[in-house]
């Protein structure tokens, strides 16, 4: 999809600008741009970007980390023999064996706590939740046992664990299986939280999460698993990680800053493209990638240029990611804003089953487009 939206030239330049070298996920992004361009060019003859689904990208990230670090293991419901409820862990059992790819009973609180214990003992678990809706059973272990222990111990007891699974909107599964937990986990000091959108996001952020010595929640989205994205040559390598706390400008523009995450990135890009075609107005679309830490700097720089801010997310509106971005807008960007910052969120309603009602509950491309037009008085 993004291939259609982005001319090849822009795609190439955005790939080149991205930090790609091997290094730990938490170092600051200081790699010179020149170097990464040079690195790309030297391998140009090998084939360039390839199409990956998000599912394949996640699978590759897991396989590479399992390969390189014997302390890494994956546990969760149906991750092994069933090949993953969403096939993200497909083939890992055959490749790494049942000691490292572990099917658990349906006891989120128990197996999450067990994974936390293994992490406290120095292993590097990847704890898969079939969806984050079920992780509510285990949120105490994530928040109290994983996120707080390093601080409570005065820094002597780290907890290197990755929690991952699909989060947020899914189609036709009604209220209990369609909730977005970004705001819940994003509010906890001690956790890091990432929300990949593209295949590169998925691979680079998951690998960074596994390598990061802190507890990290990787909030994926079920509807993105099957979507294909181009994966740059650098991202196809096993040393590709994306640093946390760095948003990515997916589309540059001068008239409106759209700050968004996960599946809403794709929706916002389509809306921005349509607005551009219809009105010649250019929206800048920022993919947050990581919501804790959150890249205020990139948002502020963009708003300084566009003077308008719109947050697009699909969680419940109250006390959500959108609220946080707007609050940050007030605190850091008020002087640059020409109009009140706005947000598009999920509706304040338990997700209904019937499709027409469901459509009214979450942002979609036409309504994002319409809202942008209204906001900019187009």
């Amino acid at each position: 999809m993004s291939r259609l939206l982005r001319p090849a030239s822009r795609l190439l330049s955005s790939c080149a600008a991205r930090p790609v070298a091997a290094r730990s996920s938490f170092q600051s992004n200081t790699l010179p741009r020149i170097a990464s361009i040079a690195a790309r060019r030297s391998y140009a003859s090998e084939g360039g970007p390839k199409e990956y689904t998000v599912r394949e990208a996640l699978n590759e990230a897991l396989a590479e980390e399992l390969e390189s670090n014997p302390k890494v293991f994956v546990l969760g419901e149906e991750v092994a023999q069933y090949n993953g409820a969403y096939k993200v862990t497909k083939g890992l059992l055959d490749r790494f064996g049942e000691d490292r790819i572990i099917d658990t009973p349906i006891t989120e609180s128990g197996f999450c706590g067990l994974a936390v214990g293994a992490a406290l003992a120095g292993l590097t678990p990847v704890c898969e939740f079939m969806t984050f809706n079920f992780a509510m059973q285990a949120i105490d272990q994530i928040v109290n046992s994983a996120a707080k222990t390093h601080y409570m111990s005065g820094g002597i007891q780290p907890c290197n664990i990755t929690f991952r699974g699909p989060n947020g909107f899914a189609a036709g599964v009604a209220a209990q299986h369609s909730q977005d937990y970004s705001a819940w986990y994003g509010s906890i000091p001690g956790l890091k939280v990432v929300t990949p959108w593209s295949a590169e996001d998925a691979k680079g952020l998951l690998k960074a999460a596994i390598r990061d010595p802190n507890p990290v929640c990787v909030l994926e989205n079920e509807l993105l698993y099957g979507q294909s994205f181009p994966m740059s040559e650098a991202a196809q390598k096993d040393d590709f990680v994306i640093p946390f706390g760095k948003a990515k400008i997916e589309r540059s523009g001068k008239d409106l800053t759209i700050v968004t995450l996960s599946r809403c990135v794709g929706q916002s890009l389509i809306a921005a493209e349509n607005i551009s075609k219809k009105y010649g107005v250019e929206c800048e679309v920022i993919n947050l990638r990581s919501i804790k830490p959150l890249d205020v700097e990139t948002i502020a720089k963009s708003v300084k240029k566009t003077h308008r801010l719109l947050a697009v997310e699909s969680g419940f509106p109250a006390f959500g990611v959108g609220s946080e971005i707007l609050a940050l807008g007030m605190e850091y960007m008020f002087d640059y804003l020409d109009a009140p910052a706005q947000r598009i969120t999920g509706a304040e309603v338990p997700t209904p089953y019937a499709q027409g009602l469901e459509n009214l509950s979450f942002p979609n491309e036409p309504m994002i487009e319409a809202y942008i037009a209204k906001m900019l008085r187009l």
Partner: protein
Amino acid sequence: MFSRALRTNRAAPLRSNAFSKAALVKRTVTTDAASAHADKDSVPEDDVKPFQVHLSDESFETYELDPPSYTLDTTKKELKQMYYDMVATRRMEMAADRLYKEKKIRGFCHLSTGQEAVATGIEHALTKEDDVITAYRCHGYALMRGATVKSIIGELLGRREGIAYGKGGSMHMFAKGFYGGNGIVGAQVPVGAGLAFAHKYRGNKNVSVALYGDGASNQGQVFEAFNMAKLWNLPVLFGCENNKYGMGTAANRSSALTDYYKRGQYIPGLKVNGMDVLAVKAAVKHAKDYATAGNGPLVLEYVTYRYGGHSMSDPGTTYRTREEIQRMRSTQDPIAGLKQKLIEWNVVSEEEIKNIDKEARADVDKEVAEAEAMAVPDSTPQILYEDIYVRGSEPQFMRGRTTDENYYY
């Protein structure tokens, strides 16, 4: 605190709380360790020469498990160390009690006075490569795992040199092989199973001891941990410290089955007199051998008693009688019990044991005084925000109360 004892003996109703009536007729675990004995002639002169002591025949009760040996190999040195450890633990808890009443300790403070034999007995059956994790009544375990009195009391006082640098307080203490100090009732049990998982993953011949109270034993995740531990044969010794009250609720008012050692259902169980440090050591040693031989988990129940309230804010007398407390203190105290045996068996003279008492108290008092003299952490952003994340992996900044107070790493 409980000096005004009343006259009537309420032993019978107390027992019926914890043990089934049928079990009373047969051999039962009681907290009375009087029938233990050692052959005086077999007690060697040499402090480190091993000899055997015979445990009380009421030390254990088992569920789907052969009982441990009723003889325990030990040395005079070890017995004296056990005695020292229990006296030091109690002295430290009494210091915490005093400091709390002087309003120098903030928040919650849960003391283990009366339960010293459990932490001490467990430690003497483990190596430093084994793991222990417990709930919030953790001071004794932290001490046994190798923390200093100074660092524990320092933590209670919120000092910079406390064991968690003043960040954890009473309920959150960590040391090598000791994983807290956990404040959410029952949550430490699956975490303890995870510690055992790590031993199995690495192929270590070590165990994890996961402790919880009779109150926590009803938490769902305890049973979830049981299931996975048995399913995967993890070397974990689940341990219910049954002090007969979960906060102010008597065991039989919270638990449909108060035989906590049977609650693993498909996991063998072992009930042990938790007021007898020798029985605890023998039980845990046996259990460790069982688990490290690849037999998987065990559910142990340490029958014990807490002399004080649930925490410092609980006088501990609204849900139990003063005479019950007084009876436990006067007849089943773990320290007095071991003292009596050691003198009876000629392991130590009365003079020697008084010296151990004095030494333990002096050591603790000295460290408590040192802890009181320690500085509190400077109230600076640098100290406030340190260690939220592993050093070097922090975000660029953390938000303060206002943006002006944002802390940049």
